[in-house]
């Protein structure tokens, strides 16, 4: 038997609901701080954010942040999940006890419509009029008391980014939770038009002063959306982002590499030369290290993406690029994720979450690995350095090596656009989706929220490195180590291993591409990450020395033993081949579908094979 009234109902759950751009996620971050979890709802790619919040009277409740929606019409996955959760029909999420509806005070009329729609679903509601400071600055005055009376629910004002402004909300939460009203039966929702009419009437009564549009936003947009300056600024932003991704990441990447090397040396000194040392050094540390080395780039990219999002610039970028993306059937929101994929496909694929429409999002994910990521650069550099003479061309303006590298990037981009077009006509075919989006007011990012979100993304990446990539590294090590070289064997150890056996079998398949058995074997450990193939080639050719020496020897070997058609075919292979476990694992998580993951892996390998074949045969014909 309970002795305190608050024990009557344990595990109280409050859901935050609101339209996009109402500041709902900010409010969620401020209320829960770092006590939050991000996952997916089972079976769909809708993000489930939940967290803990402790009220003034020491009651801990669960807060869930439902996706930003304009209505509950089941048109998008976000709308469907939100409606299912709110009506208590969701398979895994139980019905919340209370809705905390968040509305943008500067846009009351539009946001009230959702409040009215939610009221029909029968749950108790508290309305938070958010961005109260901005409304005041723009001379928009709302009377919360009139609004509360008209709506029949408690109304408080909030400034989500300021903790001190949330006292009213916190008091109201405690008050409502201590005397939680009964759930009502859901009643049919009137048409959008009827709701709109009601919202307009109520807004007219509660709005004391209409105010004007956010001045800073208006002025910034005049520059940032300018047909000439807007584009220039957009490309400078992108260029700067890439400069910093490579410039800032270089030192920490070096540090991580050296750290792992030191660790390997340490282990070599402590442990005797046995299978366990090899597993630690050549399997786990080498494998996981080859993925973790990209962490600095990933962190910087995510920081940029999060800043672009939280300031409101991301929507402008989508506006600027929309027409271009529309040509291949995508919308402007796909541009930044694809750009990010030039550094690393993992943050790119994770950034597709901002694409509202499922089919567009899938299409974008499918083509993201075609963008030339930084892991390909060592492979490209090695091969180009070995087989392409660095002679000046076009009146000495360009070097041939640079032109070839640029060509490889270009082939990736053009292929991605073609694949997107083909997908939109076949697998992701469907009704064109409207490009209809609010350009939110510009806001300064909140450092604390930025850090919370960044940590969330980094955690996801690290968790993957700690699980699937770890297993893959161990698996690849096993394949490359066993069985051992027979006594009297003349070839390097890996030749006799499972990887060697598989590689030699694969060589029959790869023969039309001009690949020799050494290359075929190197591609197997190269599944961990693209640049691992270089180290693997070193192993296959039994090269000794440090990284630089191995690369130098490899260059000589490639020059003397690979034919030109073979080397170019290998380059062509690397434009397409999805030789990256981390990317494949990310696609699996973000699409929530083994089917799409298998499709992406399959089509990229097929394209890689086809391209390498064509390049090999063409080069042979040209050189004959």
């Amino acid at each position: 038997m309970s002795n305190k009234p608050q024990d009557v109902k344990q595990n109280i759950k409050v859901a935050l609901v609101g339209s996009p751009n109402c500041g709902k996620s900010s409010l969620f971050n401020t209320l829960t701080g770092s006590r939050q979890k991000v996952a997916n709802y089972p079976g769909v790619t809708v993000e489930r954010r939940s967290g803990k919040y402790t009220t003034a009277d020491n009651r801990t409740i669960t807060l869930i942040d439902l996706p930003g929606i304009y209505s509950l019409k089941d048109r998008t996955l976000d709308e469907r999940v939100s409606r299912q959760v709110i009506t208590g029909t969701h398979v895994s999420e139980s019905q919340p006890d209370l809705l905390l509806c968040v509305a943008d005070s500067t846009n009351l009329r539009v946001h009230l419509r959702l409040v009215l729609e939610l009221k029909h679903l029968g749950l108790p509601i508290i309305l938070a009029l958010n961005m109260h400071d901005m409304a005041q600055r723009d001379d928009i005055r709302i009377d919360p008391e009139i609004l509360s009376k008209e709506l029949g629910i408690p109304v408080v004002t909030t400034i989500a980014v300021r903790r001190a402004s949330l006292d009213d909300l916190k008091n109201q939460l405690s008050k409502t939770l201590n005397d939680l009203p009964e759930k009502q039966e859901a009643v049919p929702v009137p048409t959008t038009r009827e709701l709109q009419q009601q919202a307009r009437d109520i807004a007219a009564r509660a709005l004391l002063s209409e105010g004007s549009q956010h001045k800073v936003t208006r002025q910034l947009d005049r520059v940032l959306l300018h047909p000439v300056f807007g584009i220039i600024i957009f490309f400078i932003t992108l260029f700067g982002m890439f400069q910093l991704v490579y410039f800032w990441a270089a030192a920490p990447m070096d540090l991580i590499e050296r750290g792992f090397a030191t660790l390997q040396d340490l282990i070599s000194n402590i442990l005797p030369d046995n299978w366990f040392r090899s597993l630690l050094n050549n399997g786990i540390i080498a494998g996981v290290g080859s993925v973790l080395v990209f962490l600095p780039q990933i962190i910087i990219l995510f920081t940029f993406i999060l800043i672009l999002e939280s300031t409101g610039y991301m929507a402008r970028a989508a506006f600027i690029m929309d027409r271009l993306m529309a040509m291949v059937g995508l919308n402007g929101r796909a541009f930044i994720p694809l750009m990010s994929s030039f550094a690393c496909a993992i943050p790119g694929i994770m950034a597709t979450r901002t694409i509202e429409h499922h089919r567009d999002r899938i299409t974008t994910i499918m083509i993201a690995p075609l963008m030339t990521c930084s892991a390909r650069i060592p492979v490209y550099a090695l091969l180009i350095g070995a087989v392409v003479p660095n002679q000046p061309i076009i009146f000495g303006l360009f070097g041939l090596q640079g032109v070839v590298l640029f060509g490889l990037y270009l082939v990736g981009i053009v292929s991605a656009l073609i694949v997107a077009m083909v997908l939109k006509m076949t697998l992701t075919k469907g009704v064109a989706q409207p490009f209809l989006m609010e350009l939110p007011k510009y806001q300064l990012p909140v450092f604390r929220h930025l850090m919370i979100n960044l940590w969330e993304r980094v955690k996801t990446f690290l968790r993957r490195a700690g699980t699937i990539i770890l297993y893959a590294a161990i698996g690849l090590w096993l394949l490359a180590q066993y069985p051992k070289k027979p006594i009297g064997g003349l070839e390097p150890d890996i030749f006799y291993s499972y990887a060697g056996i598989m590689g030699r079998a694969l060589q029959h398949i790869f023969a039309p591409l001009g690949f020799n058995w050494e290359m075929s074997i190197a591609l197997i450990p190269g599944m961990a990450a693209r640049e691992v193939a270089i180290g693997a080639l070193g192993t296959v050719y039994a090269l000794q020395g440090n990284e630089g020496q191995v690369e130098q020897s490899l260059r000589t070997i490639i020059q003397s033993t690979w034919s030109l058609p073979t080397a170019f075919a290998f380059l062509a292979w690397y434009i397409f081949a999805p030789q990256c476990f981390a990317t494949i694992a990310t696609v699996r998580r973000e699409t929530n579908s083994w089917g799409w993951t298998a499709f992406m892996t399959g089509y990229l390998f097929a394209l890689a094979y086809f391209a390498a074949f064509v390049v090999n045969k063409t080069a042979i014909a040209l050189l004959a």
Partner: protein
Amino acid sequence: MMTIKYLSDLKKGEEATILGFDAESCKDIDFARDLEDRLLEIGFEEGLNVKILHEGPISRDPIAVRIGQMTVALRRMEAAAVRIYNGKS
């Protein structure tokens, strides 16, 4: 007498009043379904004033319009479903 115009006909800087919606005028029927609801939900409404603030860099598409206190981006294809009256007779 006033001429029937659509939001998609306006140029940058021009203003008009929303008269109603004409989603049926879209060629693609599936696309037009829900379009009126979506436009209403994001804040388009009869009687409100709209002004084209910005145009996309290529083919002047998409457009960004001021409606009430906010800015909404949409393609001209969608804007073609919004009937307007721009005061000229």
